[in-house]
């Protein structure tokens, strides 16, 4: 039974195949509108995430399939104390594929070990979010034409930002990629990401605290939200949340073909006046996310 829990569960060839499928869907969505007829996706969302859940649901509906599930734990048997293992064993009797969002890190891995149907990790705490990374990769491919030789700036919360960690892992498999990490010292990229991914693959990177000083070097600028829910201490959150805000003034020093990305939702880390700049890609990224989820569902269902 094939599940996707971590972006590294997918080989480079599989990611290439998924992006090709997604691009085929973009070109001719009608050709895919019946591919999942008779199939059901269960969206098991143990914490609210309207955006990701709607993306999965839209993806399944556009493939002609149906959707069941819950959008918060209090509405489910989880509130009665049911384990993840038991929940997926039950849901596997009703659905053909599961998308799971869970506040506890590793919950989708547990689910995949007990499920009789494929499990897609739709985000587990501050850990992995592979379908966001698939959205990011399709965005980069379509905006930049490929991945090799890019200088990618990662800005904001690089410590807790799971999308950043997954993107680094995925991009580290391409040639001549360079990262510029832009964050306050408290929210730097964790050492294990540096040791296990960057150093191990000899990926060059620099760490800076100032966005403006490096923005001119970047081909891609990946902004992240400083997430309140990742902090134990509210005072720390308030002190750091406004540290890195992208404005039109800061963008003036950037390349003309920079791609500004963001996993969304944003709070205020990208000023709304950037939205009309042609370099802003974050709403396209949302759309690409749906197409990649469609491609992933097709791959895992083998249809």
């Amino acid at each position, binding site marked *: 039974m094939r599940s996707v829990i971590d972006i590294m569960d997918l080989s480079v060839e599989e990611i290439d195949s998924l992006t090709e499928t997604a691009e085929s869907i973009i070109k001719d969505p009608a050709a895919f509108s019946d591919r999942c007829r008779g199939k059901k996706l269960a969206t098991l969302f143990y914490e609210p995430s309207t955006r990701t859940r709607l993306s999965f649901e839209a993806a399944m509906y556009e493939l002609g399939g149906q959707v069941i599930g819950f959008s918060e734990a209090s509405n489910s048997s989880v509130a009665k104390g049911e*384990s*993840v*293992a038991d929940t997926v064993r039950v849901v596997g009797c009703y659905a053909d594929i599961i998308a799971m969002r*869970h*506040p*506890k*890190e*590793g*919950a989708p*891995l*547990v689910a995949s070990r007990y499920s009789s149907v494929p499990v897609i990790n739709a985000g*587990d*705490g*501050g*850990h992995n979010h592979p379908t966001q990374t698939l959205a990011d990769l399709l965005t980069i491919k379509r905006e930049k034409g490929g991945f090799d030789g890019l200088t990618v700036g990662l800005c904001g919360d690089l410590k807790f930002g799971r999308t950043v960690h997954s993107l680094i892992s995925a991009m580290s498999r391409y040639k001549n990629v360079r990262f510029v990490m832009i964050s306050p010292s408290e929210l730097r990229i964790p050492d*294990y990401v540096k*040791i*296990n991914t960057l150093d191990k693959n000899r990926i060059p990177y620099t760490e800076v605290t100032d966005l403006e000083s490096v923005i001119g070097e970047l081909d891609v600028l990946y902004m992240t939200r400083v997430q309140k829910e990742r902090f134990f201490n509210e005072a720390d959150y308030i002190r750091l949340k406004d540290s890195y805000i992208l404005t039109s003034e800061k963008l003036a020093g950037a390349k003309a073909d920079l791609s500004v990305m963001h996993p969304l939702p944003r709070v205020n880390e990208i000023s709304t006046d950037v939205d009309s700049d042609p370099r802003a890609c974050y709403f396209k990224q949302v759309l690409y996310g749906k197409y990649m989820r469609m491609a992933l569902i097709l791959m895992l269902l083998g249809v």
Partner: protein
Amino acid sequence: MIIGQIIDGIVLDHITAGRGVDIYETLRLGELDCTVAMIFNADSVKMGRKDIIKIGTPIDIDLDVLGIIDPGITVNYISNGKVAKREHISLPATIRGILKCKNPRCITTIEQGLTQEFRLCDEENKVYRCVYCETKADTSSLK
């Protein structure tokens, strides 16, 4: 110094000099009611100095725990006064059910019946990470 021959039991050999007490305590050998002999700083051609522990009865030993504390140990299983089996211990690739993940956000903190599991990620520095959340294991309780 003469220490009697074991008829049935276990000899832990090639223990790094000075680590014998850690192993004695971690394996709770003091709770056994058989003969247990500790030899410190024995001469060793291979190691210079080594510790040796002789246990005068066959017991189940968690080789993963031994591997974490002191990879390189040799476990000799003695039967009828002869070495019946010899195992060379190394760092285990995975550790199950011994350590507990310290990450409060890890699924292991709430999921019933889930065995704690850690994977060796950095052999040189003996770094293990939780297979569920990738948090670095605290192996200090085993030293």
